[in-house]
């Protein structure tokens, strides 16, 4: 009996976790599913194909991918030197640096976006890819730095000195020793910077000003009054990259997951 309770509780938990995906699939690939039919009766691919051929959907995905790629590369470049000294050095003001870098994780995106709106309008960054990339870096950078610095904290610099002693050039040391040893956390940090940017709604809305349309913006407006099939298809397209990334990085997640998940 006890084992049965445990078993059914676990089934409930797992069902709860996959239910959204099943629901989206049911709505996305069915047609003429009228109230009160409990399950779809007619399955079809046409709605999905039509959505995929829709230029608005496609361009929003392309724009989102492009922005998220730029954001993750830039966050990585900015985070790498900072994470290195935070992970490896003890210096006066280290605590202060941590605190300042921690700020963007608590200050609401609402306040950041509203505050920057007029400035970006004035300097011509509002409604541009560059402007949106710049504000997306605010939420991604702290997480990239946290992930990389916790990995640098376990990094042994003596490998670099060893390579130096053996006559390697600084470039060779960086590429063949440092980067090589940091690869797993670099991958995790990049992927999560990508995801945070990919799913950003409010900052894109406030800085993109209706000219930069990404998938979350389309999904939000569809959800405020569109038909269920469209909503489900957009949701599926929206969660496809995260689902792939989570499946891909499942192992590393046990280490870094909770640092990232709150913002996400």
């Amino acid at each position: 009996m006890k084992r049965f309770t445990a078993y059914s509780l676990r089934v409930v938990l797992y069902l709860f976790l996959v239910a959204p995906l099943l629901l989206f699939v049911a709505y996305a690939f069915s047609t003429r599913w009228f109230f009160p039919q409990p399950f779809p009766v007619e399955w079809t691919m046409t709605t999905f194909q039509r959505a995929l051929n829709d230029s608005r959907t496609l361009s929003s995905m392309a724009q989102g991918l492009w922005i998220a790629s730029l954001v993750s590369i830039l966050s990585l470049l900015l985070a790498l030197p900072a994470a290195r000294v935070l992970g490896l050095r003890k210096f006066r003001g280290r605590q202060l640096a941590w605190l300042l870098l921690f700020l963007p994780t608590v200050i609401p995106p609402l306040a950041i976006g509203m505050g920057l709106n007029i400035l970006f309008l004035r300097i011509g960054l509002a409604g541009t890819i560059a402007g949106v990339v710049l504000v997306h870096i605010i939420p991604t950078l702290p997480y990239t730095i946290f992930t990389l610095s916790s990995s640098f904290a376990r990094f042994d610099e003596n490998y670099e000195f060893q390579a130096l002693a053996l006559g390697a050039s600084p470039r060779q040391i960086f590429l063949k020793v440092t980067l090589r040893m940091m690869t797993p956390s670099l991958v995790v940090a990049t992927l999560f910077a990508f995801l945070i940017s990919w799913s950003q709604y409010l900052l894109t809305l406030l800085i993109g000003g209706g000219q930069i349309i990404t998938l979350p913006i389309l999904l939000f407006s569809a959800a405020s009054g569109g038909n269920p099939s469209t909503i489900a298809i957009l949701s599926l397209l929206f969660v496809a990259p995260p689902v792939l990334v989570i499946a891909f990085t499942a192992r590393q997640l046990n280490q870094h997951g909770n640092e990232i998940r709150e913002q996400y």
Partner: protein
Amino acid sequence: MALPPMRDKFIFSPWISLAPALTIIMVLLGASLFYAVAESVGYINAIGQTQVSFDAYRATLDPSSEFWTSLGFSLWVSIASTAASSAIALALAVWLSERSGNMDTLALNWNLAFPHLVWSVALLLFLSQSGLFARWAASFGLISTTADFPVLVRDRFGIGIILSYIGKEVPFLAITILSVLRSQSVGYDVVAENLGANRWQRLRYVTIPQVLPALLAGSLLVFGFIFSSYEVPALLGVGYPRALPSLALRFFLDPDLRARSEGMVISLIITLIVLVVAVVSLRMGERKE
């Protein structure tokens, strides 16, 4: 880990490495704060208004203003979601910790794949009056028309919003608690059991004190996040009463640029509350170590 001082001399100041990241964060946050404060006191250059006044603060804090309704609504939603999530997460984590298996942690992480926006959309498709559950209720003969189904999303009490947050935050908090429970090397629980403590006593005097600091710090983080986020209440809420972030954004997007000042005042108040909560949460996290 302290490094020999000599080695540090070879390497230039850490602040040079920190400069790019710190500059970008500080410039953007600083500019955002500066403009928010300037606009909240009515200094909006775009419409040639350069007179500083505290009218927006007075209007916002006026006893008859919608601000108070929204503050109450936001507090209700945030406190209810946080409390329910913490309780469920605690039960779930304790239950899971008594069983082995990394599978469960992986399963909980799966939840990460669904941003709050998508999770709310799913809830909308499940719980609306023509949603999946309404269809099931109808086919069991429990209701006959869509209007018979209870209003669970876009309702006046924020039930949909609370449910949405519970669904997202329970896995988050459960993983936080689980990692504390699994990191205990000594089986205090077993010791207590050998000393004759029953199941309830073990939970009350051993497990809960162990996880309480982490749980409280996590809950405060969750509270701050919920209190300041826009998407979920905008999607699953109603026009009145509306959450504080929705109210701020409505003022902000008002065609009348003077309304922006009130939006900024509300946004600054939200930020202030969230910052205070974050500081308390940070203190609690420190005490743990």
